């Protein structure tokens, strides 16, 4: 990884500028109930067609639930209302595998590598018909995956599994990536690496990211959506959020000093 | 399904929720009292039972249903509450049936001795085989228990020394039995015996699952490794559950042989274990009343469908329908399949849904 640009010099389009572009994803009044619990209560936000939009919030506010609702993975006991559009296309009624083939990549929270399959098999599974898989891209990012091709994914360490989970998605070209807490459980060095990877990925593909590590958020995110109690509590420019102590304090419960450790 | 028709329709003037709540803990007791005095009633429920409730045929059918309700509840201690899928539970039931039968008929022991010996023997058998089988987990455990049960089935079928009567079974010699247990007129006593057995099992299972041990069993069901790391020996707890369930099953066998008046080899078959599993799933695993309901319903259908199949109503249907419908097993199988789609989670899942329905039907009364 080459020298990294200063946070300020990343030439982000301003939020107003980005808003002029059609959002790649728009979520309107999304409601999710699971076995009687009203988990999301009318969530609306948009994801800009470039860069990283980050979804923030305390444990249990429904970030994962939001991502899963978008890719159509709400458990059978759940009930989803509202609209989710990618471009002109409405997503909610379509089966997950169609959405994914249509270019919606999803990296789940708990990694979900196939424990019984080898690393190579996990990757092979992610190949999509009719496209050539970008193995070099993946192996350049995670040489470990190349080396451990024959190991069962279940015996990988936590961090290695995370690499595999991200690697699987990067094998293909996507129109939008949904990534749920990719740096959870990773060594600091790998966190940096993953952040860099996502940064580079985000140059070509928009990313909707759920992340608890505010350092990563600060580095990557341009737009932020903050959830609280099943509703959107704040949307806006991510750096604005992170720089305003009052805002971070009230929305995320941390002072900005802790943000920039 | 006649049985479903009698589920009470939501009454328009149902008591206030508060009151229901207060009598709720006593409902099982009320049910028990009703069941105890049931034989004093001469109500006829045409279509549901052949004769009046106090006729020997009906009492016999009810007794068998109750036994299997208890058996299923005992099996649920393993399956629904501890998460152990045993495919050999029939063995311990069969040990109860054949043990009593052989000791009474071949060895001429008095019933109480035979019963005591059998229950002790069945429990020890469960403890020994469980001690071996529990070295495995999951499907391997299921198969090892199946293997043991198969050996039992083969031994019964081989009819060593003419002890078991092979495929013909062994009728119970009633000459040494207490007079109150013999003869059609005394069927009511067998019914009460079966009811006592069911009550015993439900009470034991309830107490055990509410006990500290029961809590560990529930934990085992979710994550055995975690139990170990908390400092509890999973093996010991599983063995306790296995032995207890085995003992309850043998006890059921003792009562069953009295009710049916003999042993026949199909009770040793893996199909019986499978039926127990079906009963539990049908009713709702891990629930207090689910397995009992499942067991009772299963046996009721199993016995009554033969009558249904030969009834005029079926005979008068066109052949495409009447042929399959006159096969009891066809109807039974179809009921299972439908049950999965209409009562996912078992029959007991019906109760909350019904009450949900009542609530939504009831006009909202302003709170005061």
């Amino acid at each position, binding site marked *: 990884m080459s020298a990294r640009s200063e946070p300020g010099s990343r030439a982000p389009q301003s939020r107003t500028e980005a808003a002029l572009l059609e959002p790649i994803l728009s979520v309107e009044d999304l409601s999710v109930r699971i076995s009687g619990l009203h988990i999301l209560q009318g969530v609306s936000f948009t994801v800009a067609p470039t860069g990283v939009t980050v979804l923030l919030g305390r444990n249990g506010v429904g970030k994962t639930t939001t991502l899963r609702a978008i890719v159509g993975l709400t458990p059978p006991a759940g009930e989803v209302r509202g609209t989710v559009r990618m471009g002109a296309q409405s997503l909610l009624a379509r089966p997950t595998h169609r959405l994914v083939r249509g270019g919606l990549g999803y990296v789940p929270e708990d990694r979900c590598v196939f424990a019984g399959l080898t690393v190579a098999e996990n990757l092979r599974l992610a190949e999509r018909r009719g496209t050539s898989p970008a193995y070099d891209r993946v192996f350049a990012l995670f040489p470990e995956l190349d080396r451990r091709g024959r190991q069962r994914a279940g015996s990988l360490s936590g961090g290695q599994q995370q690499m595999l989970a991200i690697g699987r998605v990067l094998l293909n070209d996507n129109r939008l990536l949904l990534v749920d807490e990719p740096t959870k459980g990773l060594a600091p060095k790998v966190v940096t690496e993953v952040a860099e990877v996502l940064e580079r990925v985000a140059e070509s593909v928009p990313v909707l990211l759920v992340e608890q590590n505010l350092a990563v958020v600060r580095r990557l995110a341009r737009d932020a959506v903050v959830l609280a109690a099943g509703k959107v509590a704040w949307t806006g420019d991510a750096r604005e959020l992170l720089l305003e102590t009052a805002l971070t304090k009230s929305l995320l419960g941390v002072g900005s000093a802790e943000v920039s450790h | 399904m006649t049985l479903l028709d009698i589920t009470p329709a939501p009454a328009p003037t149902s008591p206030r929720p508060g009151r229901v709540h207060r009598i709720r803990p006593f409902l099982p007791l009320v049910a028990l009292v009703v069941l105890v005095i049931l034989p004093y009633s001469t109500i006829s429920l045409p279509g549901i039972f052949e004769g009046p409730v106090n006729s020997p045929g009906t009492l016999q059918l009810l007794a068998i249903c109750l036994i299997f309700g208890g058996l299923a509840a005992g099996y649920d201690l393993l399956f629904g509450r501890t998460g152990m899928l045993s495919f050999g539970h029939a063995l311990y039931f069969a040990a109860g049936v054949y043990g009593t039968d052989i000791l009474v008929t071949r060895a001429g022991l008095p019933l109480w001795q035979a019963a005591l010996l059998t229950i002790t023997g069945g429990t020890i058998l469960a403890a020994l085989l469980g001690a071996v089988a529990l070295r495995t987990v999951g499907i391997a455990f299921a198969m090892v228990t199946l293997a043991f049960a198969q050996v039992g089935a083969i031994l019964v079928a081989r009819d060593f020394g003419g002890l078991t009567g092979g495929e013909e079974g062994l009728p119970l010699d009633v000459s040494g039995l207490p007079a109150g247990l013999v003869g059609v007129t005394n069927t009511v006593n067998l019914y009460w015996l079966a009811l006592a057995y069911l009550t015993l099992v439900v009470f034991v299972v309830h107490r055990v699952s509410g006990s500290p041990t029961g809590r560990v069993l529930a934990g085992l069901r979710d994550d055995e490794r975690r139990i170990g790391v908390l400092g509890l020996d999973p093996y010991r707890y599983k063995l306790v559950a296995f032995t207890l369930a085995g003992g309850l099953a043998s006890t059921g066998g003792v009562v069953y042989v009295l009710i049916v008046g003999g042993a026949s080899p199909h009770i040793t078959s893996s199909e019986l274990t499978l039926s127990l599993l079906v009963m539990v799933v049908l009713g709702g695993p891990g629930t207090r009343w689910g397995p009992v309901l499942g067991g009772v319903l299963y046996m009721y259908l199993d016995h009554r469908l033969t009558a249904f199949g030969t009834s005029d109503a079926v005979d008068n249907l066109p052949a495409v329908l009447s042929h399959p419908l006159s*096969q009891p097993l066809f109807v039974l199988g179809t009921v299972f399949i439908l049950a999965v789609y209409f009562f996912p989670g078992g029959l007991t899942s019906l109760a909350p849904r019904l009450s949900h329905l009542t609530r939504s039907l009831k006009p909202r009364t302003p709170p005061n």
Partner: protein
Amino acid sequence: MGTVILLALTGLGLAALYFLVASGLSLVFGLADVLNFAHGLFLGVGAYGTWWAAGNLPGAGPDGFGFVFAVAFGVAAGTLVAILVELVLIRPLYSRTIEQVLVTVGLSLAGVALLQATWGADARPFPRPDWTRQVTGILGAQVPNGGLLLIIAAVLVLGAILAFLRWTRYGLVIRAGVENREMVTALGIDVRKAFTLVFAIGGAAAALAGALGGVYFGTVSPGQGSSLLIFAFIVVVIGGMGSVVGSAYAAVVVGLVQQFVNYYGTSGLGDICVVGLLAVVLLLRPQGIAGKVATA
């Protein structure tokens, strides 16, 4: 010497029958994680399909090409039933193992009863080429041709299934799907199709076993499938779940043990030995002969 060869070859014939039944079971049970108690039904459909075709379908018959055609019809019927079962009954129930048990048990009861309602409880003579009733002299042993036919069929089926798993992505998809269906979908794969396919193949293997079992037994009867099922389950488990090669090994062991013990030991000992073998294998190696060690 002749006796040993005879016992070995007929034992292999029996093993082949077990394997044919077990292979489909192993696929469905080991790969799709469905404890399919209705497997015996697919067997029955295959057997009755063949029987019916040989008697009623123009072009089909008990001999030569007509027989091949009849078997093909039986296999097609079994496959179709398996597909329908998967689509209608099993599909909504993946990952609800317990309810699957209820449905497949229900299905096996209802299905067998339906066969009985349609064609009666009695065994019917099975149409088969005359040569299958004859014997071939091998090193002084009179080996039944029916058994040899089973051996050949079993080897072909084994090869075909292995090729399917090795050369197509389906094996992978299915293995992954068993672990986490959602995630397979999230990789853009229609996992439902793959599972239907597994059922279809399992059904086809079972139906073939039913048809060839008919040749072997000389009759069809409604309960035939279920009676073979318990040994098939044992074979699958000894071999290791989902390992078709393991099932093949296990079938050979079980077939030979039964045959030799039944000859040299006392009656019934063969079955007890097989069941004992099952217990011993599982206690020593809970994952079966060819199963992989599961790690946390």
